[in-house]
């Protein structure tokens, strides 16, 4: 396992989010019926997860991306949101594209998920949508989870790709075709076996409160709600 405690982790996918890409990312979740439906389901899962996490009032949205979940997070009137992302461009786009009423409740913070620029136990909940599926190596995932455990006081909500469904099975079959894989270029999204990731959650000091599937047995997306275990 790489020595993640001292060496900052930097993964290739985090470089691609420049300004242009960030804009494209913001638009991506707005066009097309399928996208809108998917976003609606994402929001539904997020709401359920937040309820299970006990309606936290200080939430660190990491990565916040283009602030896709900020309006949802701001639905709870008393909530304060820290929108954090590795890319300053992404945060600029988020600030530019969200309504003032929402922005009033958000503080932005440019930070890496592996070395969060916040003191220990400084937020109620870390809300991490669509980050962990970019991390293929178990050591990196554990490093991030340990960092999450350091910063959160109570809970963490994490979405990722898991196996045990039709899409993951199909993906695995496609990947066996090596020539196809070579054409796709570097791989930056990974399916993690549910058992493995659950073991990693426990190993890094979290208790699993529950999970929600995007479409059970079909889609790969799963949202886990974790609670910090121990003192």
């Amino acid at each position: 396992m790489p020595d993640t405690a001292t060496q900052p982790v930097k993964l290739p996918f985090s470089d691609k989010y420049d300004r242009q890409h960030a804009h494209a990312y913001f638009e991506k979740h707005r066009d097309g019926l399928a996208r809108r439906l998917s976003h609606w389901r994402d929001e539904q899962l997020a709401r359920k997860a937040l309820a299970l996490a006990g309606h936290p009032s200080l939430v660190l949205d990491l990565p916040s991306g283009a602030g896709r979940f900020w309006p949802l997070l701001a639905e709870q009137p008393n909530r304060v949101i820290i929108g954090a992302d590795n890319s300053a461009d992404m945060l600029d786009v988020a600030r530019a594209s969200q309504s003032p009423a929402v922005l009033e409740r958000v503080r932005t913070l440019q930070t890496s998920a592996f070395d969060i620029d916040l003191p220990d136990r400084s937020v109620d909940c870390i809300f991490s949508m669509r980050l962990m599926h970019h991390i293929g190596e178990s050591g990196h995932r554990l490093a991030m989870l340990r960092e999450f455990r350091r910063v959160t006081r109570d809970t963490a909500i994490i979405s990722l790709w898991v196996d045990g469904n039709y899409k993951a099975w199909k993906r695995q079959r496609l990947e066996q075709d090596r020539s196809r894989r070579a054409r796709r270029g570097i791989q930056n999204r990974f399916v993690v076996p549910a058992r493995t990731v659950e073991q990693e959650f426990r190993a890094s000091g979290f208790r699993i409160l529950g999970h929600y599937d995007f479409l059970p047995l079909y889609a790969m997306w799963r949202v886990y709600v974790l609670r910090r275990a121990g003192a």
Partner: protein
Amino acid sequence: MLRKQSLASRIVVAFVLMAAVGAGMFSVIIINMVESVEIQLISESLNRHLDFITDEADQGLRPHLAPGLELHVAPVGATGSIPAWLATFPPGLHETESDDEAYHVLVRDQGGQRYFLVLDQRDFEHREAMLELAVSIGFVLAVLAAWLLGTALARTVIAPVVRLSGQVQHRDQLLPLAPPLAAEYADDEVGKLAAAFDTALGQLRQALEREQLFTSDVSHELRTPLMVIASSCELLQAQGIAANQRAQFERITRACAEMQELVETFLGLARGPQAKGSQLAGCSLAKAADEQFQRWLPEAAQRELTLELVTEAGDSGSYPAPLLRAVLANLVRNAIHYTDRGFVRLVLRHGGFSVVDSGAGIPEAERAHVFRPFARGEASRGDGIGIGLSLVKRICDRQDWKIALTAREGGGCEFRVDLRAS
């Protein structure tokens, strides 16, 4: 046992117990009441039946018996023809058993004859079993309903309390921008509790801020006069000092330098944990150690101690200079003060150092207290107010450095500092 359970489960247990006791009591009463009423009814109906039979016998008719009934008649005092298990009963209503069957027996003397009317209890027992079944189902249902109701009630009633207790755990560490708690709760007892937490935590935060501000203000204000003293000393030295004043002059210079260092340290500490010494000038361990070694050599010589600097392994890290200097200086000074003969050794390792002395050592009982402010050992010496080690501890805590005190074999003690948190 109850004390260890959560509030919600205590409510559920209370509900279930209450229902069990209530329903149990009612069940017992119902069963007893119904039984006594039944016996009374049986007694009445048997009596009426016997009246009927004797009337019919008086009229010379053959007695007509309903199913389940049996009649035996014999003259009083000559019951030889009666089955043995019946013959001994005196007049009245009796319950008895024969051949595993239960019977009600009514015995009555009339007109010199003793009548034995026997009713088998099959019907009666059947009714009794039905009653018992109904009552026990009722009991179980009542307990079940109480459990369900208790769980539901506990959830809704206790939910805000559970939520609040989760929210206030380690809340002092939450960022200052965290919203107040009270706004999320109704204006009831829980809401008031939340508001009380808000106030208390707010006051705590303010007090901490004030303390930090005070320390940094004082340190800032002291910096200028100290600078004036230091530069005046330099000027004086340039102008030349009389030989008889040199000793005093050097003491002034040294005290001034120490004070400047302390002020730097306090400023560094007052900047709060977020800064982690990032704005402070860095220096290497070897450089800081050598500086302190040179500084304390004269005093050690004066006390006839050997001050040694041992480098076991090199270290390449850079650490906030004023804080490292303060830790080193306090530990070395402490060691020199509490050692009467022998040596004080400063050992440098990769990622840390130790200060070892051949002094009296610190008794085990006192070791735990040495890092507390104003704690001084039994064998305390004249100068110092006992704040040095507590300051060292505070610096180490802030910088995530580890400090440990162990006894050295053959007397003396060792303060071991690890500058790299594992």
